[in-house]
């Protein structure tokens, strides 16, 4: 029971709890998924260090090895879900994201500048016609209320 390793354990535990803030606040579902995937890595560290603290490293390393092997499957399956279908539609029935116009801030280089030009023109056209826009699939109206405002956009 080395006190140093116990301190490490407690710190990593606190970091897990802090990392769950991103799961709570993440504006889109991808923020949550990636935050969970990265919090899980801390879980592996806790498992291994716990084995050293309790002085039975072999048993705990078995668990950690199993978890490190298995935790690979869930993100792959989640990514599989979000990869588009091949006929150009996404799973939500909306047009495929890569054929959907991308509203981006202007990145002033080369080809992207053209895209920004088109974006400006489209914005003007939209201001004229006030066409209804289809909702983004990740924009959950219920998530808006506890998302931190605008994520440090200047």
């Amino acid at each position: 029971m080395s006190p140093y390793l116990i301190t490490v354990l407690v710190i990593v535990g606190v970091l897990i709890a802090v990392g769950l803030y991103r799961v709570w606040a993440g504006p889109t579902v991808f923020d949550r998924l990636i935050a969970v995937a990265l919090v899980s890595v801390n879980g592996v560290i806790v498992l291994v260090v716990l084995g050293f603290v309790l002085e039975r490293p072999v048993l705990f390393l078995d668990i950690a090895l199993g978890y490190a092997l298995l935790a690979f499957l869930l993100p792959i399956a989640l990514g599989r879900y979000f990869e588009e279908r091949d006929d150009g539609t996404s799973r939500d029935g909306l047009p495929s994201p890569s054929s959907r116009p991308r509203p981006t801030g202007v990145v002033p280089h080369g080809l992207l500048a053209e895209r920004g030009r088109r974006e400006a023109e489209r914005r003007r056209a939209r201001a004229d016609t006030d066409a209804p826009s289809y909702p983004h699939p990740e924009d959950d109206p219920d998530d808006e209320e506890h998302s931190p405002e605008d994520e440090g956009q200047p």
Partner: protein
Amino acid sequence: MIVPLDIIIFLVLIIAAVLAINVKDLLAAVALLAGYSLFASLLFAGVNAVDVSLVEAALGAGLTGVLFIGAILATSRHSTAKRNLRRRWTMLPLIAAFIGLMLFASTGLPDRGDPEAPAHQGVSRTYLSQSLEDTETPNVVTSLLADYRSQDTLGETLVIVTAALAAMLVLVRREGDDEDDTRGSDPGGDTSGEARGTTDDEQESGRDPYADEREGGRR
């Protein structure tokens, strides 16, 4: 058992559970449940229950998540529960009262690992002292599960196999089973794999399936 770590992991467990209920997107809920399984596994590992911990980490964190995603694929991704304020305000005091009652009841429980606890009287002493002699197995959990109480294990295995059989009975569709086919696959035996829109041939021949769309977007 390390007390501060236990407290933190309990808190994280509660946070993860509440988040998994609150999140509207069911995929995030699946990921959170996998995280919940990992934290529960950490908790079990903290009290030296390595067998339970391994099963929790293996089945909870790895396997059930994929099955959940399969179920989401077959149904819907967003939970559409409506908020019922009246029900919420009647349920909250009830839940609080239940938690208070459970906390009050837990004060009468024996301490964790107390050798004088009622659960540790009776047969468990026999199992602990006789296991190595009877079965040459150092791991008492295994000898309990597979030898002393193997009929329980038989029942559990039967439950799992029955679950698989029930899933097959419910979900497998034969040709001409019913007309309202919502999943859009072609019920035609061997051809159904190709009709479902997977493009393995394209993948294997090295063609990027997204090349067309990228070209179209950037032309």
